[in-house]
């Protein structure tokens, strides 16, 4: 098979590579104290955001948790504005008031990153409720980790979504650890996390979250069903975070071994796609070199933009607390 759509795959790879290099650069900037606070990197999980969001329309809603850079970039947000937000600059997506865990890009229908585990899942049902109420054929995609699945708010949201057949797709990024606690010590049905949703009558499917094509293929089917009004859907995307939980956590620590991390790195989503492209889509090493150069330029420009941007005016401290009439 050498007839896969070359341009299509190059585009997916470019998006994943952008997230990868952006996150690596973020870690560097954190080490240089350009970025502070909590910084959770998406390295290793890129295929999920890119594959899932590739199946959406521009006007669909996307909402995420605190590990949100990947979803925001996959939605098409300007990397410069994202980096500027991480830097706490006035030119950031949220003018420096949100930070890494609270990116929002309304024009891209990226409805935000939220940092109370499970707390944004009811919001997703609300976005979906609104589109159903307004008779708009939109879907809402809600990303969260497997660590959020046992939370009460997740279950309340699953029940409401199923009860009212809301057009929402729950995507559980199962990276096997909630911070340092492995899934088998946190979720009773850890071998099949999706049972949490199935128990409310929500259709669910597991997918290889390291394979962007598999994620997108499943999502295309799911989006069609959900858009057609068949109610919510739950996807469990099996993945692995290559880095620590946050910058405060080394890539492997007391809770997992270096060998385990190395083992999962063999199925790096970038490598998986690259192998397919080389063998089945007439791509060559030269193509990847070109992508590296292109993406490298974008990330360099993003850092430059963030670095050269001003910090917020202190007077902005009190703006946007309330909507002023």
């Amino acid at each position: 098979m050498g007839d896969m759509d070359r341009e299509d795959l190059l585009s997916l790879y470019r998006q994943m590579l952008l997230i990868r290099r952006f996150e690596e650069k973020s870690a560097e900037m954190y080490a240089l104290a350009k970025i502070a606070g909590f910084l959770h990197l998406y390295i290793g999980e890129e295929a999920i955001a890119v594959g899932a969001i590739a199946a959406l329309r521009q006007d669909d809603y996307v909402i995420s948790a605190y590990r949100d850079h990947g979803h925001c970039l996959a939605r098409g947000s300007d990397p410069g504005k994202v980096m500027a937000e991480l830097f706490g600059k006035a030119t950031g997506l949220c003018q420096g008031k949100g930070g890494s865990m609270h990116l929002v890009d309304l024009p891209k229908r990226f409805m935000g990153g939220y940092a109370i585990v499970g707390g944004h899942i009811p919001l997703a049902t609300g976005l979906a409720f609104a589109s159903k109420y307004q008779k708009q054929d939109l879907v809402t995609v809600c990303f969260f980790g497997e660590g959020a699945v046992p939370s009460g708010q997740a279950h309340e949201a699953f029940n409401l979504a199923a009860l009212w057949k809301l057009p929402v797709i729950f995507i559980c990024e199962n990276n096997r650890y909630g911070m340092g606690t492995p899934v088998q010590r946190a979720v009773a049905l850890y071998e099949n996390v999706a049972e949490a949703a199935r128990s409310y009558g929500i259709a669910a499917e597991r997918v290889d979250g390291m394979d962007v094509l598999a994620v997108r293929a499943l999502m295309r089917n799911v989006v069609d069903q959900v858009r057609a009004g068949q109610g919510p859907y739950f996807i469990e995307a099996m993945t692995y975070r290559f880095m620590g939980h946050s910058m405060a956590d080394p890539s492997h620590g007391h809770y997992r071994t270096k060998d385990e991390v190395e083992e999962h790195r063999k199925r790096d989503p970038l490598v998986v796609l690259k192998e397919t492209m080389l063998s089945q889509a007439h791509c060559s090493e030269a193509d990847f070199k070109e992508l590296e150069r292109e993406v490298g330029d974008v990330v360099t420009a993003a850092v430059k933009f963030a670095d050269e941007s001003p910090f917020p005016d202190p007077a902005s401290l009190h703006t946007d607390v309330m909507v002023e009439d």
Partner: protein
Amino acid sequence: MLLSYREALNQAMREEMRRDPRIFLIGEEVGYYQGAFKVTKGFVEEFGPQRVVDTPITEAGFTGLAIGAAMAGLRPIVELMTMNFGIVALDQIVNNAAKIRYMSGGQLSVPLVIRGPGSAAHQLGAQHSQSLEAWFCHVPGLKVIAPATPHDAKGLLKSAIRDHNPVIFIEAQLLYGTKGEVDEGEYTIPIGQADVKRQGTDVTIVAYSKMLLVALEAAEQLSREDLDVEVIDPRTLKPLDLQTIVTSVRKTGRLVIVEEGWRFCGLGAQIAESIYSAAFDYLDAPIARVTGEDVPIPYSRPLEDAAIPDVPRVVAAVKSMCGAA
């Protein structure tokens, strides 16, 4: 026309829902049951179950859903069967509703009313009798309203529904059946405007919600002892109309604050601090507070009575302050 507090709330919501199809009502028993306290009588019949949404007993879930729907352009009214249950939804109210506008740098807004009865009624026990307004007032990003009369309830609820911010609207079970004159036809009362409920020259009492009735009764008794009491109802607790209170204190030189909530860190402590800062030189005596006792509200009738401010205690506080005890 003479209306009960309950009927005034019903009219306010009915008029607003007729005016704006984006408004929907959501909560436990709001539809076919007609509301736990019959505030939404006739609503599901007039507006249908799409706009009058009965929920399972999951306050965090449906409050979160309403916040999400507000982010997507709807204007939800959440009915909490009692404000006590707002504690279950506090993560949604504090971490999402109150912060989403700020965190997003002004991109998102949450036009939302959360309403229901607070404070004690007839021996409902510790978990159903709380006055939690100080909790909500503490959080930047929320407005808090606690009207005492049918006229104020109607005008302020209409303003709350039209406001572009999350508004906590605190009613009281013991007020639902109280009656008062309500203006005919369309009117609103601005949020953040206190009302002088009784003119006087000797001492100022600030009281809101159910305690306004207690304060007015105390003022009536005191008038028979030649003490001329001015009674101010802030109506909106946040933003507080400090100016009206200051103006009164400049005239009387004495201030008693009555609240049903717990004394420690109660709203009266904040009002006192604000008045000390703004009108210290006009005070002839230290500000006095009559508050709920710092205990969980007990069930037994005499104990419950002892836990909550009553007319004799307000009368005693005023007399003591005026050297007439």
